[in-house]
């Protein structure tokens, strides 16, 4: 099997050599705590005062109508928000108690520990399946004793191994959409992140592929904390343990209306708007 300890040790070495004091944390599922998060695009407030705690070993779903700031919030969680021109933010985000926006924290380090899967599958077209999975290791100069084992492990976790094991040197772009998305999940998992953020990972996929990815989420949540943005209420109900309902009413910036366990949010939410939304009466 995989030389887990090797990767972990190496990753720790990398971590401790970089500026952050997160380096001493073990590389397992982490917990995220966002407090007072606000976001602006070109001076326009789009997200106001969001507090959300994302539990370890659990799947947190961010639900809400389009334009309510879910994706913006998600991108704030791994410092991808700041890559957009004119984007600003306020508040704190803590990974296992450490502020990821503290001045001596590197964005690259944060993103390596808080992985992300995007709405559209985006495997690197110039790389083979195998190279795609190993891309994160290459980018972060993480050495492994056996790349082949790591590739197998990551692809197995993403539920893609049996389909591609005989053609690992084929180009990643030649896979179907659902397979590409699972390849992206495998690529994100290969660097062993503490948290995996998923931005509507199934919205471009067919029901069968969606089901496979939901199974994958259920499989990986023990080792990596998952935060998922979804427009699909059934999906949120199926995959998540906790739900946060975002809303942006009458041109006001997006905010959280209600947070709670998925069971409660879908059966007896406190706020009538949540009940309306989860039952498909608006949004």
């Amino acid at each position: 099997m995989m030389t887990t300890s090797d990767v972990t040790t190496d990753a720790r070495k990398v971590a401790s050599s970089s500026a952050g004091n997160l380096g001493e944390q073990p590389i397992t599922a982490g917990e995220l705590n966002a407090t007072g998060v606000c976001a602006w695009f070109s001076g326009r407030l789009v997200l106001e005062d969001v507090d959300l705690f994302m539990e370890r070993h659990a799947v947190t779903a961010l639900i809400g109508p389009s334009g309510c700031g879910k994706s913006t919030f998600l991108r704030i969680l791994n410092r991808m928000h700041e890559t957009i021109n004119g984007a600003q933010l306020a508040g704190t985000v803590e990974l296992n108690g450490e502020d990821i926006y503290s001045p001596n924290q590197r964005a690259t380090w944060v993103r390596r520990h808080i992985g992300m899967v995007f709405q559209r599958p985006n495997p690197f077209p110039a790389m083979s399946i195998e190279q795609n999975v190993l891309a994160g290791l290459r980018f972060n100069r993480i050495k492994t004793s056996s790349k082949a084992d790591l590739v197998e492990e990551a692809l197995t976790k993403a539920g893609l191994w049996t389909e591609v094991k005989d053609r690992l040197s084929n180009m990643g772009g030649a896979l179907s959409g659902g397979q590409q998305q699972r390849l992206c999940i495998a690529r994100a998992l290969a660097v062993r992140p503490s948290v995996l953020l998923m931005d509507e990972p199934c919205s471009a996929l067919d029901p069968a592929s969606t089901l496979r990815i939901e199974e994958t989420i259920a499989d990986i949540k023990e080792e990596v904390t998952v935060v998922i943005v979804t427009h699909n209420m059934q999906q949120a109900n199926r995959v998540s343990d906790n739900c946060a309902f975002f809303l942006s009413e009458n041109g006001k910036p997006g905010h959280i209306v209600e947070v709670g366990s998925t069971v409660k949010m879908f059966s007896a939410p406190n706020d009538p708007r949540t009940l309306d939304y989860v039952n498909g009466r608006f949004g």
Partner: protein
Amino acid sequence: MSVLDEAPTSQSPLEPDQTKDTSPQRKPIKVRDFKPSDVLLLAVTAIAAYSIVWIIFDQLTLFSGEFGFVVTWIVVFLAMYWFVNLQIYGRHMAVDRLLGGIVTIGALCMILPLVLLIVYIFSKGLPLLSLNRFTQTQAGVGPLSPISAGGFLHAIVGTLEQVALAALMGIPIAVLTAIFLNEIGGRISSSVRIVVTAMSGTPAILAGVFIYSIWVLTVHDYSGFAASLALAILLLPTVTRGTEEVLRIVHNDLREASAALGAPDWRTVWSVVLPTARSGLVTSILLGVAVSIGETAPLIMTVFGAQVMNTNPFHNPQAALPLVVYQEIKLPQKSAVALGYTASLVLFILVFTIFVLARILGSTWLQNTLRGRGKGKGARLDGDVEEELFSVALAPAMSFGSGEADVDLGYHYRPDQEDPT
């Protein structure tokens, strides 16, 4: 005549051989079928149009001239072709065929000069082309020597050295400039872009004069290196513009995916953006080389030309193929002019060879072959050595704007700072 049916749509992959083998009854529909009768129709229409134009243009009116004749012929042909198709197939098909005809004629007008040029060079240059043109120099060849004596090896070597040096200096700068413009940007990028655009309009002779005055006239003398300096100035804007366009079409999703894996910006550029844009990159570099390999004006003032072999590009005048063409064709003797055409042919062959080689080297096929088709454990995973080399080379250039260096993104959040809204 049957140019229209050579359109790629008619040989679409919708009709693979297997379909024919398994079920011969099921014939695939040809959406844009161009039957033999259509070829005949096209030919007859063209001939009829020719005849009408001949009668009206050449015989009845007082117009004359081949150019006017051809233009009138094309217009009359298109009108007749549209009308005939309208009668036979109806309005939809007639418009389709008319536009197809216009586009095809346009393409022919584009290709024709090129074909004529190549035919001309071959017809003029081929009679005097022999193996010794590639293996000998003009050393000891005087006006009284037989026309078959001597060759252009000295000029081939000179051109290759000058262009290689120019490419060596110009291409890295050009690619880095393009990366700066597209991947880093910032306040000065627009002014850099204006300078690059202005440079691409620089007359070649100006680059020659510039190098002549600051390099040749000062401490140094005529040399191949002086020429390559001038050529580098000329290929810089071409490669920069081309590379920038190519980098721009690399989808931003890929940059985000790379960043989300924790890659610093230089790494994203080196491992994701450039490999994705590789074939376009090769094309833009080739365009730059093509610009510099055919330039003559700057060479006059920088290499001076030579009859003998000079393999050292840093010292003494050197020959160059375009310069040989220019110098030979200027001479009064017919034999020299003929040799000039042969030199053009040699230049043409040289350029063609370089292009074919570059295409093969840049092809995905070769990259995959080199990488090895090994599966699973045996496969060579990536060029670690190559990567280390380039990370050393590229990292300092990209370090601003990336999280890799101590300089972090300028606009990151500081808790003690209020947001300006």
